[in-house]
């Protein structure tokens, strides 16, 4: 399969601090790739570079053959990338349905059509009973679900998920993993996720990349990663000692 997203030697510094250092990563079309690593490893910075929040200092980011580096976030969305925010950003005074409808209006002017599409995404993320609630009244796990529903509603080719399973109960995590798996199988959507919940990473991803101090220190299948000494040393190892 061809690479949908290619990150080539991307670096980003903030006031001299190298947040992302010379990272390359390839995400195949239809792939489920996880980005893991300790806090402060540069995962979210890498996401923000892909999503156009700020420009990279060097390197290239290519989506389906087009260089997308330097585009604004809305142009990145037009190019086919949907994202969620680690610190959730719902539209607080709008209802769940309205929140997701905003996403679904990407590419259509028809409100009725957008609301129908929004309803489907809301059902998919298990928020159907809260559809008319204002987003500010939702619990944190529900806000995370809302983030996903809203991003999905823009019909992206590539979905960037930033710790959407943090704070979910194990059964809820399994449910969400199942949602992403079936989405991936049925629609062929490509997913790149940042996740600390190893239960989700192991059961969901085809491929895992590990960041540490802004550098990619390892990548491979989930099984390979879980046995890589470098990864055990800086990240996974701590948990195994317990």
């Amino acid at each position, binding site marked *: 399969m061809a690479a949908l997203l290619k990150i080539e030697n991307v670096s980003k510094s903030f006031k001299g601090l190298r947040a992302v250092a010379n990272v390359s990563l390839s995400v195949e079309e239809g792939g489920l790739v996880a980005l893991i690593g300790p806090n402060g490893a540069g995962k979210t910075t890498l996401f923000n570079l892909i999503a156009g929040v700020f420009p990279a200092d060097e390197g290239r980011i290519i989506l389906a053959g087009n260089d997308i580096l330097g585009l604004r976030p*809305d142009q990145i969305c037009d190019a086919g990338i949907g994202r969620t925010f680690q610190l959730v*950003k719902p539209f607080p005074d*709008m209802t769940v349905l*309205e929140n997701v409808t905003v996403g679904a*209006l990407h590419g259509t*002017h028809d409100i009725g059509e957008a609301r129908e599409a929004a309803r489907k995404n809301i059902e998919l993320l298990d928020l159907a009973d809260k559809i008319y609630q204002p987003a500010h009244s939702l619990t944190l796990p529900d806000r995370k679900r809302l983030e996903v529903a809203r991003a999905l509603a*823009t019909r992206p080719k590539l979905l960037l998920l930033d710790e959407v399973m943090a704070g979910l109960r194990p059964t809820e995590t399994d449910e969400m993993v199942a949602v992403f798996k079936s989405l991936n199988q049925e629609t062929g959507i490509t997913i790149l996720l940042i996740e600390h919940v190893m239960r989700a990473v192991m059961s969901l991803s085809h491929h895992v990349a590990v960041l540490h101090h802004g550098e990619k220190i390892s990548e491979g299948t989930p099984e390979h990663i879980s046995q890589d000494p470098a990864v055990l040393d800086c990240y996974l190892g701590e948990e195994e000692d317990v």
Partner: protein
Amino acid sequence: MMGFNMLADLTNKGRIGLLLFLAILISLPFWSSSYIISVATITLYLAILGQSWNLMLGFAGLLSLGHALFVGVSAYLAAYLFSVLGLPPVIGIFPAVLLAILMGMLIGYLGFRFSIGGVYFALLTIAFAELVRISVDHMAVIGGTEGLFLQVSEGDRKGVDLINLRGHPWMFYYLAMVLAFLTLAGCRSLLKSKLGYYWQAIRDDQDAAQALGINVFRYKMYAVIYSSGIAGVAGVFYAFYQNSLFPESVFGIERSIEVSLGPIVGGVGSLFGPVLGAFILTPLGEGLTELIDFLKSSGIIDPKSKLNGLKLLIWGLVVALIVLFKPRGIWPWLNDKLGFCRKESD
């Protein structure tokens, strides 16, 4: 298209309320005094402007404290074209509203291109309004500080001439009512369109809106364009209703603040809030003025005492009380109590 299916948003109670309200408004001239009609005309005029101001802050999250600018440039241009070139306002309204929109676009461009947000954007709107006020002070061709006047003959005030906007006070009253209704219906359909959804998204969280593919700059510009355009239409009405324009009384900051008070009291972000706010504040202010005059003439208070600022003081008190006790405005609270608007889940 224009949102005349507004009735669909209302419960039966709301429909009866609206019909009652309309019946009172329509029949008003037949059973009240010319003074009441003039107060009602100004109330409707402020309801239109409140709607325009609310479109920016309540829908798109953009605080304008310079709305008098949009009203003023349009009023002056239409009045100038009529009095000097003889161009009737029915044609003059086009360049006048265009000028208001261009002013809006200029402020919007500077503000949004250079990411001037929140209160700093509001300062930018004040700065432009003041700049134009001072410029007009020195423009002899439109009267400068002496003011610009429109000729009114005795005959004018008897007929109905909508092309030249000369006529009986009733004509202006009904015209204001039609414009207020069109503005309300127009804002309703905007709010329920893609624009409305995008504006509210930008208002609630600009970064999230952008991540969902919204070109924030462009949609903020649309908000300023619609808002300044509505204010421009109101400006033409103002010029031909007042027949006299002075830089201070047209562009002054009090005018801009006056525009914002109605929606703040009625409920920022709601459709009926600006209307309700205008109908609370304007009669309240006028009633106070009348009351003071009455008390003075009947000798209860000293006729020489200066109480000019009392109206503003009471308005300030009302706004302070609303902000303290009903920060979302009176309409959302009233609607919760009375259930005029249909909830989406019904």
